[in-house]
């Protein structure tokens, strides 16, 4: 297939534009939906109408941006069809049915969100039912994103061999091996919590912006309380991210090593315009951590909707930084100090903002909201750019079906006897010792067990094994012992 050429910005640039803007809007919609429920419940429990009004306004934002997210997704679909035709048509071989389910969830969400907002007053007498309806949005969103995340995580940790197997045996359009790929769970968890943090921080940022604009005292209290609720919700979700991120990084290290190396050492497309965007994202997060801790410290004494003792904040903040440092795993000392400096800078900045605003949190809300948006965009960018050259990865994917054998066995109702013979795969050249070890040593124990013994008298151990009943000739025993002594891999 010949892709269309896109002038000025490359094909990758187009996909990047649609993908990142769509993610930015879509994540926001998910986060806001969650916050709407929190604010509605808060309003219902406290009897304070202002929370309900805040929820309604937040939902109006959602109704308005929802369709922008939709059209960005449509733009993504169109441009993938034209710019990466081979990749895109093949994704449907694996993902058609999940995408159709996703599509229906999408419709259900659109209907629910519209109904929830436009019939707010009509359902005033059935508040609990209305809250329940709104609370359905979050699980539906998570379920929908679950499917998209499966596709996204597949692109980073594909496990091609398994996909090939399930294509031969499964139904066309549904590939469980691909769907439940190694990093699926971590991407999902990471995104679910990040979306809530991001959406809530943005609501808080809007409240902060309104605090700058509004002159009326009554509205000031409204935006301050609403913003505080949103900020607290966002912060709680934000705390879980380094923990999830830590395990996510582990999964990448074992299943997408090259991507992991690109991320951690700043190779390939991670560097754009001379800047390492992955670590930049982490510096921003450090600013957010330092800033939020300072903010809670400064305001925890006041009578707030969300009581946060400073001790709790400090403990959690420390854990946060610990995980953060651990997550790098290969972090340099230089970067460690940069992170500390960023956290301190964030702390000073927030302190200044609170003071200069006369105790008003408006500057903090605005700052953290903007920073969280930046981290979402940069995180998404890093994930996409970490793949060792996008085009190459796609052509690697293409090797699953070379044209002449694609036709027969991708059709579901094909007779297996009609499949063309697989071309003979030349056996990898391995030393005889390796073959012998693999064949003889793993009958009773794993090879890991063998690897566990270092600097051992291998002649003795091989003799012991023969004593346990291993049937090998003397020559073979020598070969095995020699190979094990050589410390070469097997």
């Amino acid at each position, binding site marked *: 297939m010949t892709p269309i050429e896109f002038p000025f910005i490359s094909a990758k640039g187009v996909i990047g534009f649609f993908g990142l803007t769509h993610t930015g809007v879509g994540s926001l919609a998910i986060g806001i939906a969650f916050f709407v429920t929190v604010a509605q419940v808060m309003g219902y429990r406290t009897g304070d109408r202002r929370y309900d009004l805040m929820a309604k306004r937040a939902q109006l934002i959602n109704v308005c941006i929802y369709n922008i997210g939709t059209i960005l997704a449509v733009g993504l679909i169109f441009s993938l069809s034209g710019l990466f035709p081979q990749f895109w048509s093949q994704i449907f071989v694996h993902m058609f049915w999940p995408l159709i389910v996703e599509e229906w969830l999408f419709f259900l969400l*659109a209907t629910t969100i519209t109904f929830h907002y436009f019939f707010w007053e009509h359902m005033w007498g059935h508040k609990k039912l209305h809250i329940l309806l709104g609370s359905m949005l979050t699980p539906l969103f998570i379920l929908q994103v679950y499917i998209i995340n499966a596709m996204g995580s597949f692109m980073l940790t594909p496990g091609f061999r398994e996909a090939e197997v399930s294509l031969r045996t499964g139904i066309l359009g549904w590939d469980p091996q691909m769907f439940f790929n190694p990093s699926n769970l971590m991407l999902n968890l990471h995104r679910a919590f990040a979306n809530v943090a991001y959406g809530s921080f943005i609501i808080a940022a809007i409240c902060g912006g309104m605090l700058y604009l509004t002159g009326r005292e009554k509205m000031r209290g409204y935006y301050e309380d609403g913003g505080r609720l949103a900020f607290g919700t966002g912060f709680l979700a934000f705390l879980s991210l380094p923990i999830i991120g830590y395990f996510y990084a582990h999964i990448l290290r074992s299943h997408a090593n090259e991507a992991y190396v690109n991320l951690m050492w700043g190779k390939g497309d991670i560097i754009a315009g001379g800047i390492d965007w992955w670590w930049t994202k982490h510096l921003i997060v450090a600013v957010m951590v330092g800033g939020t801790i300072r903010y809670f410290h400064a305001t925890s004494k006041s009578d707030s909707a969300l009581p946060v003792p400073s001790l709790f904040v400090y403990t959690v903040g420390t854990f946060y930084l610990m995980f953060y440092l651990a997550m790098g795993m290969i972090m340099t000392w230089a970067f460690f100090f940069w992170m500390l400096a960023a956290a301190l800078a964030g702390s000073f900045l927030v302190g200044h903002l609170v003071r200069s605003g006369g105790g008003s949190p408006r500057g903090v809300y605005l700052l953290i909201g903007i920073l969280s948006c930046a981290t979402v965009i940069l995180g998404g960018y890093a994930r996409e750019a970490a793949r060792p050259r996008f085009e190459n990865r796609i052509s690697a994917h293409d090797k699953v079906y070379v044209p002449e054998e694609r036709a027969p066995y991708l059709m579901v109702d094909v007779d297996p006897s009609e499949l063309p013979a697989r071309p003979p795969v030349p056996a990898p050249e391995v030393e005889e010792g390796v073959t012998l070890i693999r064949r003889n040593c793993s009958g009773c124990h794993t090879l890991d067990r063998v690897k566990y013994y270092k600097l051992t008298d291998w002649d003795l151990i091989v003799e012991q094994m023969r004593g346990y009943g291993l049937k090998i000739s003397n020559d073979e025993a020598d070969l095995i012992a020699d190979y094990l002594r050589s410390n070469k891999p097997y």
Partner: protein
Amino acid sequence: MDLPVIQTPIFPRWVWMEEITYSHIPIATMITAFMVLAPVFEYVGYRLKDERYDRLARGLIWFAMILFSPGAALGTGIPMWIMGAYPEFWSRWTNLFFWPLIGQFAFFLGEVIFLFFFYYLMWDFLRDRKRLHIFFGVVAAFFGLLVQFVWDAVGSYMLTPGVPLPGIETAVGWSAKAFFNPSFPYLFSHRFFGNISYVMMLVGGYFALKAARKNEESEKEYFSWAADFMFTIGVIAFFAMPVIGWGYARVIQINSPVAFTAIMGGHASPNFTIKMFMVLILAVLGVTYLFVRYESRVLHGGLTAGVLSVAVFFWIHPALDVTGGAAGWRILHTAVPVLFIGFCWFAARKWDHTAKVWRRIMFVAGLAAFVAFLIGGFVKSKARQPYTVYQEILKPESTAEEEDRFLLHERCLYCHPGARVFDGYRDRDWQSLVRAERDRPGVDLTDEEAKRIVKYLQEQYP
């Protein structure tokens, strides 16, 4: 190119496709019609200083807002289904129309931004700057129409492709001949007036029912007024349809003759007949109501001229080529409209338009318009069978029988118009008839084609 084709469960592939498209299209057309009408109404209200128009416009936009997200969500399902179920078509089609589709993104984005942010949300905020607000509404409607413009272009290509559908070996992206294909202007204008007409009749009928349910006098009055206003314009806009439809049919007849045959007497004609029956219902009920409701002689005269001009169109309708121009048909097509108009003039004097039954009649007419609209789209896609793009790419599910039928119609109907011509030779020997036809000059059937045609005729017209 051999992309695997998704096998659909329960229903055949086309049922799933129609299900997703026909859940999206009514919503999308309704929104577009609302967007076109609302700024116009708002402007009228602004000039006449009549608050009712403003309320009506706002109500329509409110309804469009509710419909928008579900409609857009369903719309994204359409490419999903096509990619899985018609992958080769999708690859080649997006290759041909890549740039219009990217433009589509921009237009849709403009539509959303102007409709949601500048038009809907700013309604109260710009209360004192009405002209600016109306301008935003016009911009939103403009983008909405651009979206429809592109879809109609790439959709009409499937029925009357101006140029062959290129393969995927070369990147294309844009073709003016394919975009501005022969039936595109007709499809666009047909849909433009059709949408306005059906939406206004349907909403008018709905308002008529709503007026009956309201208890407050002022509300009752408003909804009765809105119902009459919407319904009347809907019926008047309808009169554009036969004129455009006539040209549309001609273009299909010239460019895709087999599809034309399929509609006029072929396999799509049962659907087309139902559609025309619905059109008959909406026209009779709608015109009768207007005669009864208004006393204006100008309106009565205009409606009379409209109905009689439709009769004239039947005289010269392309379909008559198929029916052989039988005199009986012409007499019928003349007598019925004339009698109907006479009846209307009579009813206008005798009947009372305030009777409650008219509300239901308006609603029924609106429903008939809606059904006619739905079936119309279905006829268009069914007429192409067994092709996804006429004579360019077969549907994966097309059967040998359908392909043979297409071959028969393509080769024989130039001289023997009308699918019914074969009925007259049921007891004859098809083999010798086809052999005789092959001896005529200009008939260049290959042996293999002749065999398929004979086999098909023997099976279908034994």
